[in-house]
């Protein structure tokens, strides 16, 4: 689960991790109202107006409706013109940003509508670094990744100058050790004042990652100020979905507007659905088999419209919901049901399919491939239903048939 920058900073601040002062704004008035308090608190006349969306690349991104306005704007009007000038500039920007569509390298060309702004104090930046805590699957442990190349795309740094990425593996028995924090700070070339501030920062970050069950905490850039303070200028946090049951406060930060409504609806019914771009709808039991079904459809010449795993116990209601969700996609020209029944019985799924089709009414070709427990019974139920359903003997056979019928 992802959260917004302002939420991540709130969680960090709660844990004693230094972040710039900031205020959330969902209206132009709220944005303007934040300006004077920010300038007063920080003593810095510069104010930053940041779009809050789950995608990155906001700094370079621009708005469809206002191509001259970026996703993140540094307002310097207050330097010479005082707080009134800053407020004017913020009013103008916020008016253009809120409700508009921000396009970044990560949003795709359709972009994302910005509903929330984060107003932040200006910071005197001496250095920009990169810092992250994430899982290293190869060793089955969290690592701290740090680099002097802050404010850049870390994948680019990894590809071009991998030697500039420092790495410390965290032993879960003790967490990040003091000596490891020191190694990192020397590797980053921090001066004495910053070294003093960096160790508690990164150790608190490690503790936060463990406590909150994050998949990733990424701070890019991590800034060192002129007076040696260390602060998170940006903050990104993603959480392990499997752990949300023990973090209701984090779960409450979910932004439904950032998720696909069909995917959300599917989740509520215990189905795992991911929308794709193709024309062949899929309904499968098991994630690996569902992926393989999508792959086979592509292999025989069409594109899958979705990933859908009905899981181990799909009853008639779930199968009906699955069909409804697939059919809500206007691109779908055919549906392929591929079931290998182990615990799931083929006669149960067949009854579910027949009932669902009668209820939803298809309008597109349907191919069903059943294998496993009670397969003969299942096939008979489909035959006897009188519905226009084509049977297949194998996964490949089924994929070939549906692609042909959907042409």
């Amino acid at each position, binding site marked *: 689960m992802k959260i917004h920058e302002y939420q991540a900073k709130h969680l960090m601040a709660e844990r004693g991790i230094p972040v710039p002062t900031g205020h959330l704004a969902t209206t132009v008035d709220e944005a303007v109202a934040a300006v004077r308090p920010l300038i007063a608190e920080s003593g810095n006349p510069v104010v930053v107006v940041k779009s809050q969306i789950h995608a990155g690349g906001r700094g370079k991104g621009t708005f469809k409706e206002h191509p001259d306005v970026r996703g993140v704007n540094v307002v310097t009007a207050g330097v010479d013109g005082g707080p009134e000038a800053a407020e004017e500039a913020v009013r103008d920007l916020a008016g253009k940003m809120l409700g508009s569509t921000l396009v970044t390298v990560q949003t795709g060309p359709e972009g994302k509508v910005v509903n929330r702004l984060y107003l932040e104090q200006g910071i005197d930046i001496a250095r920009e670094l990169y810092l992250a805590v994430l899982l290293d699957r190869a060793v089955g*442990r969290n690592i701290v990744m740090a680099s002097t190349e802050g404010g850049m795309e870390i994948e680019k740094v990894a590809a071009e100058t991998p030697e500039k990425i420092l790495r410390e593996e965290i032993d*879960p028995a003790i967490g990040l050790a003091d000596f490891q924090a020191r190694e990192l700070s020397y590797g980053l070339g921090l001066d004495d004042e910053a070294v003093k501030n960096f160790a508690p920062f990164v150790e608190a970050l490690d503790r936060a990652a463990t406590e909150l069950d994050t998949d990733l905490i990424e701070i890019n850039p991590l800034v060192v100020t002129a007076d040696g303070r260390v602060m998170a200028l940006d903050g990104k946090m993603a959480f392990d979905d499997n*752990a949300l049951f023990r973090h209701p406060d984090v779960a409450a930060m979910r932004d439904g507007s950032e998720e696909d409504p069909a995917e959300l609806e599917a989740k509520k019914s215990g189905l795992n659905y991911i929308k794709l771009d193709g024309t062949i709808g899929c309904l499968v039991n098991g*994630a690996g088999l569902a*992926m393989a079904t999508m792959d086979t459809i592509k292999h025989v010449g069409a594109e899958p419209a979705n*990933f859908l795993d009905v899981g181990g116990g799909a009853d008639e209601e779930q199968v009906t919901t699955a069909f409804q969700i697939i059919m809500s996609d206007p691109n779908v020209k055919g549906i392929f049901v591929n079931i290998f029944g182990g615990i799931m019985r083929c006669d149960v799924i067949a009854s579910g399919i027949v009932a669902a089709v009668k209820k939803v009414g298809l309008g597109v070709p349907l191919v069903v491939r059943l*294998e496993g427990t009670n397969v003969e019974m299942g096939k008979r139920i489909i035959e006897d239903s009188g519905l226009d359903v084509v049977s297949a003997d194998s996964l490949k056979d089924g*994929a070939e048939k549906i692609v042909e019928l959907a042409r």
Partner: protein
Amino acid sequence: MSILVDRDTKVLVQGLGKTGQFHTDKAIAYGTQMVGAVHPSRAGEVVRFEGDTDHSGVSGRDDTYSVDLPVFATMREAVAGTGANASVVYVPPPFAADAIMEAAAAGIELVVAITEGIPVGDMVEVKRYLADKPTRLIGPNCPGVITPGECKIGIMPGYIHQRGRIGVVSRSGTLTYEAVHQLTVTGLGQTTAVGIGGDPVNGTNFLDVLRMFEDDPETEGVVMIGEIGGTAEEEASEFVAKQMSKPVAGFIAGTTAPAGKRMGHAGAIVSGGRGTAKAKIAAMTEAGIAIAQTPSDMGEAMVRALG
């Protein structure tokens, strides 16, 4: 010979809720030596399992079975009371990691964790805890392990299996059944089928199982089924290239999966450009593994690799 489990394996079930009870019944029907259960709130009970024998399992049994399983409060008591050397975990996600560690502390040699949904942070701790214990963990989020005709631990349907010559190792559940079904139909059969599970941090990986199959006199070839996410297939490919003498066939699911999306399994995600199906297929091909283009071709790929 097979690997990991055989007719002598004595199994405890951890978690006797609806799911645990259902699959324990199926295991007993198959002929697996289930010897007891651990379920603190049901400790002291004796649960009777009876029904029709699944003759696709252990041979030479009556047509019906009736087995009484004692339920214990702790793994230590259960091991002392039954001499068990393996356990299967059906405990729900919030408590499953604790159950795995309890089994390890009680000296269990093989723990098969079926549970899906265990927090990654818990599994990082479990891995650390198990490092100095005699326990091999399979899973979590896996369908289990089966040596056809001898021992079935997990949720796989026994009847699709047939004892034979091919080792199967897979991150998936139903996709594994496809491969097993094809091996049975072609007459190659299976020595042992191991589901290592779909989570990003697990107890046993492809590399570990391939090593075991290489050392198993009964296994003549291996089918490995991977998917997007992580680098386990790449690491396994290196082993296959340098140290494996037996032929390997493989399939990788997720060629069409979009980047950054978790495809069902917690570990099935392409992130930061790494863990793509393409990279895995390339590494496996380079190592001489016969790649199946579609899941329907896995049996044929194994026949090809056996030459």
